[in-house]
């Protein structure tokens, strides 16, 4: 009976979707050539797709519900013995299959060889593959930096920033224009691009300090568009829509590099900067500043009541995020040697957002994975590349509904306490804590 009812529901749903999408999916008109094309096979596809999809949707939703109720049950029960988050990530489950936990990865015995192998692969990569591959990898690494930058704002500060591409643009144009007009080299432009971008970040943050989350999204989006329109329209300086051409590649002590060498060199610069970014972002998130930022993102009012200067925290987050975008921008200009405003549209900001969301907000390994997947997958699976944006859109919705923590959810750091503290004998609990409860 239950099954029949579900079946009927799904059939109705399939019918609904077929009818709903009928005009746009099945009929294609071209009012230029005045032709109408009927694509009936798509209606059938839609029917089957939504029928199967509805089951999948229901299944995932039910699982989500179960997980939630388990969590609340655990929250209210007195004995919560393990502190690990109830949401097990995909990687955790994969590892579990190998008899590992995430902590195994942290153990020196495992971590060092794993890192060494990874390091070796990454280092030989440009030498054993083609220029084409290296170029793709450079893009991916640039996006890793961008995503880690956005992660400071979105992942730690919980602020939806839809204008991130503008800071990327500021970095790129700082280098592009300085190089074009004054012949400034890459290494000087790198800190300048970061600084210019950081200043823009602060300028944007000042008016939005008092705004609630959703307004922030719109204002940052608006800011991104304003910057892009300025780049298009200030053509006297920026060369407008045609952009800046023949930007120099990074120099190496004035050596003359061949094209291949230059790409390889750029690859290693990107790699170094990724490591640098990870290092700094990791240190930040486990510091006082990082904690205050996370606290502000979790509950603005409580954070302020605990003495967190949320205005300063917001400014810091925007500036820090922008620094990485600026660096990525300089790298981008150096890699492509050609920039124009088209590379910095709203949807480029959304792409970066998608990386952070897919990977796992606030989770550094997650964000890196997210960026790599979203850049490399469409490159290597050409069939995807047409559907790229469609899939990104779907990814955002699906992740939010079913896996808001992302592929590799952030796990809060468990602080190790000194042995004498673990014994818990140093202080007598005031007022008989729950520890004494029978």
């Amino acid at each position, binding site marked *: 009976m239950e099954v029949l009812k579900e079946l009927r529901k799904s059939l109705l749903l399939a019918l609904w979707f077929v009818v709903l999408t009928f005009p746009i999916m099945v009929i294609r008109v071209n009012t230029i050539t005045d032709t109408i094309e009927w694509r009936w096979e798509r209606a059938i596809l839609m029917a089957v797709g939504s029928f199967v999809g509805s089951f999948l949707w229901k299944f995932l939703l039910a699982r989500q519900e179960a997980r939630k109720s388990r969590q609340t049950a655990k*929250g209210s029960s007195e004995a919560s013995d393990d*502190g690990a988050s109830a949401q097990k990530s995909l990687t955790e489950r994969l590892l579990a299959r190998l008899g590992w936990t995430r902590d195994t990865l942290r153990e020196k015995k495992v971590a060092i060889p794993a890192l060494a192998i990874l390091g070796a692969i990454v280092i030989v990569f440009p030498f054993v593959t083609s220029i084409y591959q290296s170029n793709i990898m450079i893009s991916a690494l640039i996006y890793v930096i961008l995503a880690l930058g956005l992660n400071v704002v979105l992942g730690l500060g919980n602020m939806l920033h839809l204008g991130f591409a503008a800071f990327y643009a500021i970095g790129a144009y700082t280098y592009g224009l300085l190089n074009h007009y004054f012949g400034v080299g890459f290494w000087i432009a790198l800190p300048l691009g970061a600084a210019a971008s950081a200043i823009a970040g602060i300028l944007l943050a000042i008016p939005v300090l008092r705004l609630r989350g959703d307004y922030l999204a719109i204002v940052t989006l608006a800011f991104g568009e304003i910057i892009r329109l300025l780049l298009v329209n200030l053509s006297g300086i920026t060369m407008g829509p045609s952009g800046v051409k023949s930007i120099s590649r990074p120099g190496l002590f004035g050596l003359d590099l061949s094209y291949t060498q230059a790409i390889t060199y750029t690859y290693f610069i990107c790699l170094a900067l990724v490591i640098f970014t990870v290092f700094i972002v990791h240190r930040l998130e486990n510091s*006082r500043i990082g904690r205050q930022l996370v606290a502000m993102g979790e509950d603005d009012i409580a954070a302020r009541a*605990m003495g967190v200067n949320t205005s300063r925290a917001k400014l810091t987050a925007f500036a820090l995020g922008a620094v990485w975008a600026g660096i990525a921008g300089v790298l981008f200009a150096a890699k492509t040697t050609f920039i124009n405003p088209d590379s910095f549209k709203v949807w480029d900001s959304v792409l970066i957002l998608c990386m952070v969301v897919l990977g796992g907000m606030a989770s550094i390994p997650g964000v890196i994975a997210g960026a790599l997947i979203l850049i490399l997958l469409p490159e290597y699976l050409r069939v995807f590349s047409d559907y790229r944006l469609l899939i990104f859109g779907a990814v955002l919705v699906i992740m939010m509904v079913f896996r808001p923590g992302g592929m590799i959810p952030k796990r809060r750091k468990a602080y190790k*306490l000194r042995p004498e503290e673990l014994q818990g004998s140093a*202080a007598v*609990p005031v007022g008989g*804590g*729950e520890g004494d409860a029978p």
Partner: protein
Amino acid sequence: MILKATQLSMDFGGLRAVDRVDIEIHEGEIVALIGPNGAGKTTFFNCVTGVYPPTEGQIHINPPGGTEVSITGLKPNRIAERGLARTFQNIRLFPNMTVLENVMVGRDCRLKAGILGAILRDRRTREEEEQVIHDSHEILKKIGIEQHVNEQAKNLPYGAQRRLEIARAIATEPFLLLLDEPAAGMNPQETRQLDDLILRLRDVEKLTIFLIEHDMSLVMRLSERIYVMDYGELIAHGSPAEVKSNPLVIKAYLGEDVSA
């Protein structure tokens, strides 16, 4: 006195939620603020802690060993830095942070490490960080929730969440602790333990305590003085015995009972 509100008022549009309230708290006291639902107690706390700028009136503090200053209209974080800490009626923890981190955030306003320190992690920053971890853990022990140390705050049982809010508040090293309905939702046994906790905070930690509470038995057991609010106004003030026998108070509460 260590806290003094004079003629404090707060309007929301046309609604006067707090109406010319005068309150004074002295060092080492446990003072209660009571009143029927919607009397304006939480709003009063919000004004004192800077969540809302009061429409009218003044708030002064005089920290032990300090001088009297006005804190009217200061931002909440500035007020917290000056030594007023609070809990919230509807628990407002940092749900995804661990218990220890919640407390560490409380303590963070007493530290100096900036971005550079975070990145370079020099010796001073490292020592500071270790100190915070140590101190926060000590606080958790005092409050009696150290067994939860690395759990996410949202996964704690309800009573422990209330305690964690207190732990986080005292981590800011306040001289005055404002508790908004600390016993709400607790069972009688938990409430009794809370009694002890509050007394020890006062006697051992030398904190002054100002609390809003609906649990009258707790209020009568603990507080030395009681303020009563109704419809935004202060309608009575005095010792528990005085307040208990005050006809205005009885009317305010009975009136509420009839309508409820």
